[in-house]
C-alpha cells in the first residue's frame, strides 16, 4: 500500500497566452500516487487538474519541480502508464481489434501474440463479437470500453482516466464505472493504481480511496479527503450520501473567491473567473429553489438529481446565485436570501432592474465595462479590450467564456448593449 509509484514534488506549470504573458496553472503541487489505491482529482474547470494528469502521463513537462515514476525522472510518456481519454480518442479508421492492438503494435509485438492479448482484453471489458466493428458503429459507452481495453491490454501499472465518463449519459457512465471497479476489486487487471480526474462528485466518492479537491488561481491541492469505505459501495447508503454532501461542501465553501457568500473580505477581483451560468439556468434554479418541495433550502446533491445538471454545472449556477446575492451556500446546502425570494416572485421588468443592480455591485468585470463605457466619449468599446485584460489571468478559452458570461449578464440587466457582429459593447440607448 505504501510503495509510491508516481511522485510529484513542488511542480509548477504555467502556459503562455497569446499576448505572451505567462499564466500560472499549477503552483507548488505535491502529490504521491501509491500502490494499491484509487485517487480522484476534483476541481473546477481551469483548476489545473487535467494539466496535472498530463504531467503524470508525461505528455507535458513541468516548468520546475520533480516528476518521478518508480523513482526515475519522467521526460515523456512511460510504458507502464496508460490513459483513458474523455473523448475516447479512438482511431476511427481502425477496427475495434486494431484499436486495442495499437499499443502492442507500437511495441513491435508479433501479430499472433498481439491478436491473442487484444482478444483477451476485449473479452474482459465485455466487447466480444465487436472485434471487427469500426468505432463509428458503436455507441458512446461501447467506444469508451474500447478505450479502456486499449489501455488495459498494455497491462499498465498506472491507469490515468481523464473525465472518462463525462461524455457518456449517466446510466452508461455508472455501469462502466462499476465494471472497472469490479475488475479492480477482483484483481482481473494488473494495474497497481488508478488516478481519476472527474467533474462528477458521485464518481469520485464511489471509486476513490482518496479524493483531492483542487483549488484554482493558481492550481494546488486544497483539500484531501480519505475514504475508508469498502467497495463495492452503495450509492444510496448513508455513508456515501454524507460523503457526497461533504465533498459538495468542500467544493462550495472553500472555493476561493468564487462561490463564497459575497462578503467584504473576499470580493471577486476584476480578472477572476466568473461562474459559467446563463440567465435561464440561474432563474430556473432560483425558481425551483423558491418553490415546493425545497422552500428556499436545498441539499446540493438532491438539487443535482432534480435538475439533471452535472455537478460542474450546478456548482457554477450556485456560485452565480451566491455571487449575485440571491442565495447563500453552506455545507453543501443552498439557501435562498430574501432578495432571491423577491426576485423569484418578480415580473420581468423588476427582475431586470434587480439583476442589473446586483451585477453592477458584485461583478467587478461588469462594473468595469460600464465604467469604461461611461468614460468613453463615443460610449462604445470593443470586446477585445476586455478579452486582453482577462487573458492575463485566464487561458484563452476560459477568458472568452467569462467575457461572454459578463456580457450576457450585463445585457440582461440593461447595463450595456452588445453587437455580436461587430463585437462592440455600448451604453443602452435610452440613457
Amino acid at each position: 500500500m505504501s510503495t509510491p509509484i508516481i511522485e510529484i514534488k513542488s511542480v509548477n506549470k504555467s502556459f503562455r497566452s497569446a499576448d505572451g504573458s505567462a499564466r500560472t496553472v499549477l503552483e507548488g503541487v505535491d502529490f504521491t500516487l501509491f500502490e494499491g489505491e484509487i485517487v480522484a482529482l476534483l476541481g473546477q474547470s481551469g483548476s489545473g487538474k487535467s494539466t496535472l494528469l498530463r504531467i503524470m502521463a508525461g505528455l507535458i513537462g513541468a516548468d520546475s519541480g520533480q516528476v518521478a515514476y518508480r523513482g526515475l525522472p519522467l521526460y515523456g510518456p512511460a510504458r507502464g502508464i496508460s490513459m483513458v481519454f474523455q473523448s475516447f480518442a479512438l482511431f476511427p479508421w481502425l477496427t475495434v481489434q486494431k484499436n486495442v492492438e495499437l499499443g502492442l503494435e507500437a511495441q513491435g509485438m508479433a501479430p499472433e501474440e498481439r491478436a491473442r492479448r487484444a482478444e483477451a482484453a476485449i473479452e474482459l471489458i465485455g466487447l466480444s463479437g465487436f472485434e471487427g466493428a469500426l468505432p463509428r458503429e458503436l455507441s458512446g459507452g461501447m467506444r469508451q470500453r474500447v478505450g479502456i481495453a486499449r489501455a488495459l491490454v498494455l497491462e499498465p501499472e498506472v491507469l490515468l482516466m481523464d473525465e472518462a465518463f463525462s461524455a457518456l449519459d449517466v446510466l452508461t457512465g455508472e455501469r462502466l464505472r462499476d465494471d472497472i471497479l469490479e475488475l479492480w476489486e477482483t484483481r482481473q487487471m494488473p494495474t497497481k493504481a488508478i488516478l481519476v480526474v472527474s467533474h462528477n462528485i458521485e464518481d469520485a466518492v464511489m471509486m476513490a480511496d482518496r479524493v483531492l479537491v483542487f483549488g484554482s488561481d493558481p492550481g494546488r491541492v486544497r483539500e484531501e479527503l480519505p475514504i475508508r469505505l469498502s467497495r463495492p459501495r452503495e450509492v444510496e447508503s448513508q455513508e456515501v450520501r454524507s460523503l457526497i454532501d461533504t465533498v459538495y461542501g468542500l467544493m462550495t465553501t472553500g472555493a476561493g473567491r468564487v462561490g463564497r457568500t459575497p462578503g467584504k473580505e473576499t470580493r471577486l477581483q476584476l480578472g477572476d473567473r466568473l461562474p459559467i451560468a446563463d440567465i435561464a439556468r440561474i432563474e430556473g434554479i432560483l425558481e425551483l429553489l423558491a418553490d415546493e418541495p425545497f422552500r428556499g433550502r436545498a441539499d446540493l446533491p438532491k438539487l443535482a438529481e432534480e435538475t439533471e445538471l452535472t455537478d460542474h454545472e450546478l456548482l457554477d449556477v450556485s456560485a452565480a446565485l451566491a455571487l449575485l446575492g440571491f442565495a447563500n451556500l453552506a455545507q453543501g446546502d443552498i439557501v435562498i436570501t430574501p432578495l432571491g425570494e423577491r426576485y423569484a416572485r418578480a415580473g420581468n421588468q423588476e427582475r431586470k432592474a434587480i439583476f442589473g443592480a446586483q451585477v453592477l455591485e458584485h461583478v467587478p468585470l461588469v462594473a468595469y465595462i460600464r465604467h469604461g463605457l461611461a468614460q468613453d466619449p463615443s460610449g462604445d468599446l470593443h470586446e477585445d479590450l476586455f478579452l486582453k485584460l482577462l487573458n492575463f489571468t485566464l487561458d484563452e478559452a476560459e477568458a472568452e467564456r467569462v467575457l461572454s458570461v459578463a456580457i450576457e449578464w450585463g445585457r440582461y440587466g440593461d447595463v450595456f448593449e452588445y453587437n455580436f457582429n461587430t463585437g462592440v459593447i455600448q451604453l443602452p440607448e435610452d440613457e
Partner: protein
Amino acid sequence: MSKTRQFFPRQVVEAGGNRWDWALLPLVLALLVLLAYGAEQMARPFQLGETLPISLDPINLPYYLLRTTMRMFIALGASLLFSCVFAALAVKYRTAEKILVPLLDILQSIPILGFLSITVTGFIALFPGNLFGVELAAIFAIFTSQAWNMAFSAYQGFRTVPAELTEAARVFQLSGWQRFWRLELPFAMPGLVWNMMMSMSGGWFFVVASEAISVSNQNIKLPGIGSYIAMAIEARDLQAIGWAIGAMLIGIALYDQLFFRPLIAWADKFRFEESGSETAPGSWLLAWLHRTERTQDIARIFVRLLERSLAVFRLSYDGTSIRARPDQKSAAPQRFWDAIIAAAVFYAVWTLVHFVHTEVGWTEVGRVFVLGLYTMSRVVVLIFIAALIWIPIGIWIGMNPRLAERVQAVAQFLAAFPANLMFPVAVVVIVRYGLNPDIWLSPLMILGTQWYILFNVIAGASTVPTELRYAARNFGLTGWLKWRRYLLPAIFPSFVTGAITASGGSWNASIVAEYVTWGNTTLKAHGLGSYIAEMTSIGDFPRIALGIGVMCVFVMGFNHFVWRRLYRMAENRLHF
C-alpha cells in the same frame, strides 16, 4: 462488420481464386499490357530537333489518351509522395515550416508555363538522345499543376489532427513512422483524395501547354491528347477538336470509374466524424475487388509489409529514458535560423527592387498592376454572375434529394472536364460576329470553375435541417424575404467555400483564357493573364517574373482581404 469469415481452410473450398478473380483477370492483364506499351514508348530514342509525328486521324486518339493519362498518373503519384514528405517535414520541424509554407503559397500562384520555360532544357539534358527527358519535362509541368493544393491539404490534415488523438499516440508509444501511417496519413486522407481529384482536373486544363512544348525556343509535341489539340488548333480543324473532346470525356469517365470512385469509396472509412454516415459512397469496382481472393491477397502482402515496417521502426525507449529528456532549450539556434531567414528575405526583396529598377522599370510595374485590376474585375464580375445563375439552381436541386444525387455526379464530372477545349469554339464565334474580346473572352475564365459554386451550393442546400424547412413553410416566408432571411444565409458558408475555389481557379485560368489562339488568329483581352501568356511565348523572363509576381500579390491579397473574412464570418454566424 464486412469481414468475411472463413469456416474452412481456403485450399479445400477453392484452389485458385474465386469467380470474381477470374472475371477481373482480363481487366488486369489488359491494363498491364497497356502500361508496358506506354512505358516503352516513353523511353524511346529521340534527337533534339526531330519532329514526332502527330496525326489528326481519330484512330490514334486511344493511344494518345493512354500516353496523356499515364503522364498524369505518374505526376499524380509524384505529387502524392511530395505532399506526404512536405507535410511530414513541415509539421515536424518548426524551422522547415517557416520556410516551406510561404514557399508553397508562392509556388501555388506561379502559373505552370513559368515552370516549364525554366526547367525544360535541364530535363532534356538529363537524358540525351532519349525521349524520356522531354517526357519528364512534361510530367514535371503537370506535377506543378497538381502538387501544391495536395501538399496544402496534407499539411492542413497533419496540422489539424485532434489533440487527444495525438496524445493517445504518444501515450501508446507510437514512433514517428508509426504515427505517420496509423494517425496522420489516415486523418489527412479524405482531404487528400478530394484534392487529388481536383488536381487531376487541373492537370487536364494545362494538358496542351505541357505536351506541346513551345517555350524557350523548343518546339516539341509529345504524343498525347494535348499535342493532338495543339495540332488541331494550328490546322483550324474543328472536327478534330470535337474528336478530342469525345476522347477526353471517355478518358475522364474511365479513370473516374476505375480509379477515383473506388478510391473515394475506400477513403470513406477515414472520415473522422465518428457518427454513422447518411450514404456511404459506393463503387462497383471496389465491391468487386472486395469479393476477389487473389487480388485481396496481393493487397494483403502490401499491408503485411507495411506492418512489418511498423514493427521495425518503433520507439526503443520510453519517457523514463535519458534519451527522452528534452534538450535544454536555448534560444540561440532558433534566433540564428530566424536571422538567416530574415536576411534571405531582405536579400530577396532587395534583389527584386534592383531587378525591377534595372530590367523592367517602374512604369511597367504600374502598367502590370493596372492589368491586374482588369483581371480582378473580371474575376469579381464573373463570380457574381455565376452566383446569380447557380445559387437559385443549386438551391432548387439541393432541396430535391433525389435530383441532387444525380446532378451532383454530373457536376463533379463537368468540373473535371477541361474547359479550355471549348476555347476554339469561342474564338470562332467571336471572330465571326466581330465581338469585343475584352468582354467575350472573359466567360472562358469561369467556364471550368463555376461548377465548384454549383456543387457546393447543392451540398449546402441539401444539408439545411428539416426543422428549418418546416419552420420557414410554417411562417409562410415568401418572396425576397424568404431568400434574405432563410435560403441565402442557409447556403452562405458552402457558397463561400465554392467561390474561393472558383476564384482561385479563375485567376489561374486567366493565363489561358485571356490569350487564345486559333490557327494564326490570336485573340487577346487586356489583363494580367494575357500579359503573362504573351511574355511566355516570346520568352521575356524578366517580364514573366514580373507578371507572375504581380499575380501572386493579387491572389494572396484577394484571399486575405476578401475570402478569409467572408469565410470567418460564415463560420462564426451562419452555421447550424
